[in-house]
């Protein structure tokens, strides 16, 4: 239980840091919005075409945004020299990862929930009827992005060319998340929406596999 209470304290710290400046959330929202607008020039954004390409472009935008948004996650600690203090403050370094990935999942989910209605208006795809189910899909997808992304941002923070390296490490690893989230979202945006529990189960499997891997190997990433 010490793990959970430590995680809660660290999560509070992550959220406080972000809400003081709101830098990360603002830039991510604007970034995704830019991509969504630019995508409209690459195909004819009629209703039927939007239903076909919309879910994919939405998730691709989320993936790109996540690979940029996760950069400062450990870099910030490194630049401020706070990583050692953070490590000393908890017995189990997994709490640091848990807090960071929970914060990242919340940030991603927040931007997605904010941008989904905008996407719906711009591309004429109704989302209101299936909104709660869409949020569930977005949560599972964001969790997958955050689990792998948080682990890899601990790696990229200590490498050269880190801004390019993180997307390069992360994006191929996220192929299953992209496919499963896109398919599940697409099934909810058609005229007769249906929840694709099979794809949601697949996302759950992805999340569990990498959460376990992070639990087993994460602590080594924080070694001095």
């Amino acid at each position: 239980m010490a793990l959970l209470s430590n995680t809660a304290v660290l999560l509070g710290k992550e959220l406080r840091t972000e809400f003081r400046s709101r830098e990360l959330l603002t830039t991510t929202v604007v970034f995704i919005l830019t991509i969504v607008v630019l995508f409209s020039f690459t195909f004819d954004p009629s209703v039927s075409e939007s239903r076909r390409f919309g879910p994919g472009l939405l998730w691709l935008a989320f993936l790109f945004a996540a690979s940029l948004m996760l950069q400062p996650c450990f870099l910030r600690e490194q630049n401020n020299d706070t990583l050692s203090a953070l490590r000393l403050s908890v017995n189990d370094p997994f709490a640091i990862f848990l807090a960071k990935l929970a914060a990242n999942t919340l940030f991603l989910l927040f931007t997605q929930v904010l941008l989904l209605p905008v996407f719906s208006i711009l591309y004429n795809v109704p989302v209101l009827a299936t909104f709660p189910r869409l949020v569930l899909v977005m949560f599972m997808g964001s969790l997958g992005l955050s689990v792998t992304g948080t682990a890899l941002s601990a790696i990229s923070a200590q490498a050269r060319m880190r801004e390019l390296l993180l997307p390069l490490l992360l994006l191929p690893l996220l192929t299953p998340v992209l496919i499963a989230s896109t398919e599940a979202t697409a099934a909810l945006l058609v005229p007769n929406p249906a929840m694709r529990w099979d794809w949601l189960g697949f996302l759950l499997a992805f999340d569990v596999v990498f959460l376990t891997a992070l639990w087993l190997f994460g602590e080594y990433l924080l070694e001095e």
Partner: protein
Amino acid sequence: MCACGFVGGSLLKKRILVAAVVVALMGFAAYAALFIAPTESKMGTIQRIFYLHAPSGMVALLSFFVCFVGNLAYVFKRQPKWDWLGVSAAEVGMAFCTVLILTGPIWAHPVWGIWWTWDARLTLTFVLWLLYTSYLLLRTLVEDPGRRALFSAIYGIFAFLDVPLVYGSIRWWRTQHPQPVIMGGAGSGLEPTMRKVFWFWVLNLVILMIFLIRERYALEAMREEVQSLEREAEAA
């Protein structure tokens, strides 16, 4: 720790002998594929590329598995030799994976009429190739040798864990969208001589893989020794 063997004539001779045997085996395998195996009735001569293509895929996966074992062992044991095994196996796997990706379209264009299709197996191979390219790139971007070894080991573990998930998702997704061209299982329903040539190729490429990993491992060990000698010279 020294797996080098670059000093001493007898070791060098042994390595040259092993290399000669591997080259001879590959030569015979090429002969078997071109002249011993019968010509396939529908596809003709182009089908012979299959003896190189399919076993390369199997051996690439095997190399990546060896890399995964090296990565796991490094994380828990922290001996540099496991890191050397990891990088050697990843590079050799990439070589076989590249052969796989290049020979595929050469065969596909005359037979299917297209160079590439986003079929489950092709897509998996491409993603695999990208994952291990990232693994090798990561190694060039971390300065400290200990950190480089540890980070790449953990990324290698993540990459290998991702393989079944990537394959599962693509397969599931693509089988729901009907595909014009789907190949039967490798080696299924093969004519007996073809089957013999095919398995001879598999065996051969496994031998080639072991040979290449050993050579690459020796190179990495040598590099390490040079670096430690350089450090000693600087300190003196």
